[in-house]
């Protein structure tokens, strides 16, 4: 498989469940070695999209390529090269992390060393504890360890920190960063904005089964399609706070200040700001 081929290519993906169309024309390209975030509110179609890429669901229409394979054909060669962390993937209760990892490692042609995976996922101390005695956070780390043990090129992380306390979240973030350091391509879904901003090289904002915006988190804040680039705010002569969205702040500021000077007034509390990813996200995903 050629490394120049993107890790994931999705074109005009549709998925219909009876009357309901969960995915309505998604286009995504994930490059090798990047952490790509699929960001959107619950029910936006993130998990459906990811489960089509993982081979769990078949698509209604569109083109999908994962490492050059069609995931709906469920070829062994593809499953040997991907690692999947599900939202709710359980594990046998009477097996320890070390045993589970040793078992999983045999599924893959070139697995990572079990001891090393235990260390990477922070489970060394719990390596020989039966999984039913592990805490929720430890089980999530085991999820990650099981996905990592086959040394996959591409990892899918579906809402990896949902339900975590802040400390556990920071731990999970550190792990995702270490995946990037290992050269893995990561497709991450999340409904947490800060998570996407913190981890992803590029983000696609998805809502109602459509991609609304795509790009690096910082640029997405600066150049949101369909949204103004700058927000200019000031207090007018009557003392009311005024805010205006504009793509051309220079002109607006010039007009504003000339008028004020002409009237001999001050422009008080003047501010010019660029919308953050949060502004864009809230604006794009707002209801109605």
């Amino acid at each position: 498989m050629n490394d120049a081929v993107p890790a994931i290519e999705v074109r005009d993906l549709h998925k219909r469940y009876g009357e309901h169309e969960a995915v309505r024309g998604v286009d995504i390209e994930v490059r090798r070695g990047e952490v790509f975030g699929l960001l959107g509110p619950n029910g936006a179609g993130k998990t459906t999209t990811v489960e089509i890429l993982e081979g769990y669901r078949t698509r209604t229409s569109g083109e999908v390529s994962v490492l050059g394979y069609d995931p709906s054909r469920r070829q062994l060669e593809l499953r040997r090269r991907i690692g999947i962390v599900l939202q709710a993937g359980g594990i046998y209760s009477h097996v320890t992390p070390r045993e589970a990892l040793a078992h999983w490692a045999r599924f893959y042609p070139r697995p990572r060393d079990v001891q090393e995976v235990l260390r990477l996922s922070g489970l060394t101390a719990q390596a020989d504890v039966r999984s039913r005695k592990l805490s929720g956070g430890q089980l999530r780390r085991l999820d990650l360890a099981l996905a990592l043990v086959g040394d996959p090129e591409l990892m899918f992380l579906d809402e990896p920190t949902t339900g975590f306390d802040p400390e556990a979240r920071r731990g999970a973030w550190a792990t995702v960063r270490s995946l990037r350091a290992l050269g893995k391509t990561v497709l991450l879904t999340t409904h947490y904005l800060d998570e996407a901003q913190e981890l992803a090289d590029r983000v696609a904002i998805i809502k109602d089964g459509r991609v609304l915006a795509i790009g690096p988190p910082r640029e997405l804040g600066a150049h949101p399609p369909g949204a103004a680039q700058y927000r200019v705010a000031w207090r007018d002569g009557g003392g009311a706070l005024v805010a205006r969205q504009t793509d051309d702040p220079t002109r607006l500021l010039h007009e504003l200040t000339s008028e004020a000077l002409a009237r001999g007034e001050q422009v008080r509390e003047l501010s010019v700001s660029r919308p953050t990813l949060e502004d864009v996200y809230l604006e794009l995903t707002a209801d109605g």
Partner: protein
Amino acid sequence: MGDAMALTWRQYRLERRMFWRNPSAAFFNFVLPLLFLIGGGAILHGNQHQLDKLVPAIAGMSVMSTTFTALAYNIVFLRERGVLKRIRGTPLPTGSYFGGVACNAVTNTALQIAIIVIAGRAVFGIGWPRDWAELIVFVLAGVVCLAALGVAFAHVIPNFESTAAYVNAVFLPVVFVSFYAFDTASAPEFLRNVADALPLKPLIDGLYGAMVSGSGLPSNLDALAVIGLWGVFGIWLAVRGFTWEQRRG
């Protein structure tokens, strides 16, 4: 292919290890049928004719509990916990997974039958089985048939909490009707027809022939045919209806 065989073996080893680590599974598989055997043996003490029927009946019930009941429980549990979905996402071949699971059930059944055969010889005075070949044929046919039906039945059970209710709603009436029709020649014809059409009574008939009467395989071919038909139906249902993940909602 060698790889798939090796993975089947690994899955089987893991299933065995988990079985012994789960005390309640081990209890239901081994202790419960023995308790039935001891309880029934105490009641029927001194009545050899009745003991001759008790041992193969308990053997038949054991085949059903180690396959039908155990697999329905196991699959509903693993499906609800998301273990099956996780396995589905790995390169473990489906055949290797189910091969390991099935061999685990076969091992439990074989251990169970061995215990009952030894108890029958040592305690219940029915001696060693008259026809080992027939015993093996019927146990294997029963395992394949009832294991497939257990996997198929798992598809009907909506969640793990209701598994006991669903399984017992099938297991208890089938065991009752089959035992009654097997034991009582004067049972109403309607009940006898029902029992003969279900897989357990033919299995017990075959086991009786193998363990006690020595009537031979040829005289029980119709019983084998009933088990075979249920087996084909069960496999068809198990494959067709299988779901790897919990239905939503």
